[in-house]
């Protein structure tokens, strides 16, 4: 199968990367640092102008991420002045824009249709089901429908989801018709919030799908030429059984048997192929039970939040252990057609906890940081919420107040360290 957009354009000694960074990203530091390590020229595009945009027009660009084709046209005009050799989007929306830019500039990337399908949970399920990738049975409804009629048609337990929101925002389990009616109203309220409602027609729709029992895993991968390479498989030791689906701990390597891991990787590859993804990072959520793997979601972007800090890879040039390559560096290298490192994750087990929102309220301070950081195996406790920030619990919320990272000899030891560090933290809310 040929690459949709040809091969990467041969570049000068200092290739230029167009990095699509939404202003609400956690990942600016990691991607900017990766670009520095690679000594590539960097242009950062965001949906809101930087205060330096006029002073540094080669380095800073403003693109409307809501309009991928228009953004791609702007990028092409920019590239006529400042040649661009690679493009990377870091989240669901910018992954689609990156695909449009890649198509316009004939760079490495995904077909626009594939990236668009990966972003839309309904479109994704349609394509996956057609390709016989195991997905939950699903149905799409408009928020204007009578929820009692929706409830009468559903199977239980089921899960209600918005078509596009990230971080499990608005995802609610219902165990019976009354629960579905309540969940439907709650999700509709989220979709009617101004920041969501203005995003498009998808905000007027709801996905209702079977709840799939079994442990959930997250697969981090890199697609090159349509072939998926698994970079890491994370277990999620806290059961995600609802009623809401706020993430907590990711730990790798997975404790699942090797044959189960292979089936999961095969399932993710099927999904990549079914969607038509060709080039770049993917993050997939799957469940595994006695019927095998189930593809819950697959996104054409790297892992969210600051969770990529849990991953590091051996450097082929300098030898594993002496220098590490970040996930962001892997992503940038691939986008620019640069040689990839070995893509072998470090030997140690590694984990991250997305710190749960303790309750709703305004954050005043976080106590116990020194004590949490003193827990053996804990490497970092990063509080990303700022004093004065309102913390909103799931399903309405989508912002974790921080992240805890740990490394150790075994996944069990890592998980225990993460839990102990979390136990020592106290969030003071008003």
């Amino acid at each position, binding site marked *: 199968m040929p690459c949709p957009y040809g091969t990467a354009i041969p570049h000068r000694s200092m290739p230029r990367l167009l990095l699509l960074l939404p202003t609400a990203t956690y990942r600016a530091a990691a991607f900017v640092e990766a670009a520095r390590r690679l000594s590539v020229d960097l242009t950062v595009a965001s949906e809101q102008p*930087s*205060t330096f945009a006029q002073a540094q027009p080669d380095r800073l660009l403003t693109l409307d991420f809501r309009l991928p084709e228009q953004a791609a046209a702007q990028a092409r005009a920019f590239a006529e002045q400042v040649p661009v050799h690679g493009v990377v989007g870091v989240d669901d929306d910018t992954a689609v824009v990156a695909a449009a830019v890649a198509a316009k500039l004939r760079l490495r990337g995904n077909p626009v249709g594939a990236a668009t399908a990966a972003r839309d949970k309904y479109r994704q399920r349609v394509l996956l089901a057609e390709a016989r990738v195991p997905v939950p049975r699903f149905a799409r409804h408009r928020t204007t429908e009578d929820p009692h009629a929706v409830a009468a048609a559903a199977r239980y337990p089921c899960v209600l989801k918005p078509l596009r929101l990230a971080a499990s925002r608005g995802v609610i389990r219902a165990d019976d018709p009354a629960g579905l009616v309540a969940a439907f109203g709650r999700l509709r309220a989220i979709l009617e919030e101004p920041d969501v409602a203005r995003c498009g027609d998808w905000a007027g729709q709801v996905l209702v799908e079977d709840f799939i029992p079994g442990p959930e895993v997250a697969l981090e991968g890199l697609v090159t030429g349509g072939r998926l390479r698994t970079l890491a498989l994370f277990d999620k030791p806290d059961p995600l059984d609802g009623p809401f689906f706020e993430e907590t701990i990711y730990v790798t390597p997975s404790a699942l048997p090797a044959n189960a891991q292979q089936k999961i990787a095969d399932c993710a590859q099927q999904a990549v192929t079914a969607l038509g993804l060709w080039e770049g990072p993917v993050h997939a959520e799957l469940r595994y039970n006695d019927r095998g793997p189930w593809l819950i979601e697959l996104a054409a972007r790297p892992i969210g939040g600051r969770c990529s*800090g849990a991953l590091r890879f051996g450097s082929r040039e300098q030898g594993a*252990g002496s220098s*590490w390559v970040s996930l962001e560096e892997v992503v940038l290298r691939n986008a620019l057609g640069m040689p990839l490192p070995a893509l072998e994750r470090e030997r140690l087990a590694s984990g991250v906890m997305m710190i749960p929102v303790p309750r709703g309220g305004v954050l005043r301070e976080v106590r116990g940081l020194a004590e949490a*950081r003193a827990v*053996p195996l*804990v490497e*970092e406790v990063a509080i990303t919420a700022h004093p*004065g920030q309102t913390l909103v619990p799931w399903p309405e919320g989508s912002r974790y107040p921080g992240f805890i990272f740990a490394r150790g000899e075994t996944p069990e030891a890592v998980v225990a360290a993460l839990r102990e560090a979390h136990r020592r933290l106290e969030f003071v809310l008003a």
Partner: protein
Amino acid sequence: MTPPEIRISAEPVDIGRCKFLVSEPVHAGGVRRFASPEEAKGSPLVEAIFAIPGADVAEVIVSGGLVTVAKRSPTPWQVVGKAVGQAIRAALASGRPAVAAKLATSGGGGADDDALYERVADLFEHQVNPMVARHGGRVELIDVQDAVVMLRLGGGCQGCGMADVTLRQGIEAMLHEHVPDVKGVVDITDHAAGSNPYFAAAKK
């Protein structure tokens, strides 16, 4: 009289850099940056940090109650940080200055640094700060040592999700253009304490 309890909080920036916030002043004479064990001679705290086994420390910056350490080794901060904390406590308990005062012409670059400081300060005042002020931010020039600019971000820039973009794509680029003799930029901002960032992050 019992000496005050010294509290130290470690804030790793990444695997290579970590900030240590100390409840007592470590060095009151402005900012000092050390890029090698040789430069650390005469400053007991910094000598001790460079001597931490297996850390391969690359840089130490001390300013008031803030000690920033950069290392090359993959050893986690959870390990190195304890040794840094012990070094800080020992240096403060000794009763002697933990960090030597900066000499007017130390390292052979003092006069050059003074000249660079003036040029960078002028750039910050007349071009950089008016720009970041549009987002309620400000940039404070702390010092220039060995042609490395140390700065602190405040207001809307402190804790902002796009602070690194502002720093690398904006401020650093402006310095490269207008003061090309500058060799590097170090941000010593305590971003975790930012209470009003212009852009706040959300998981996607």
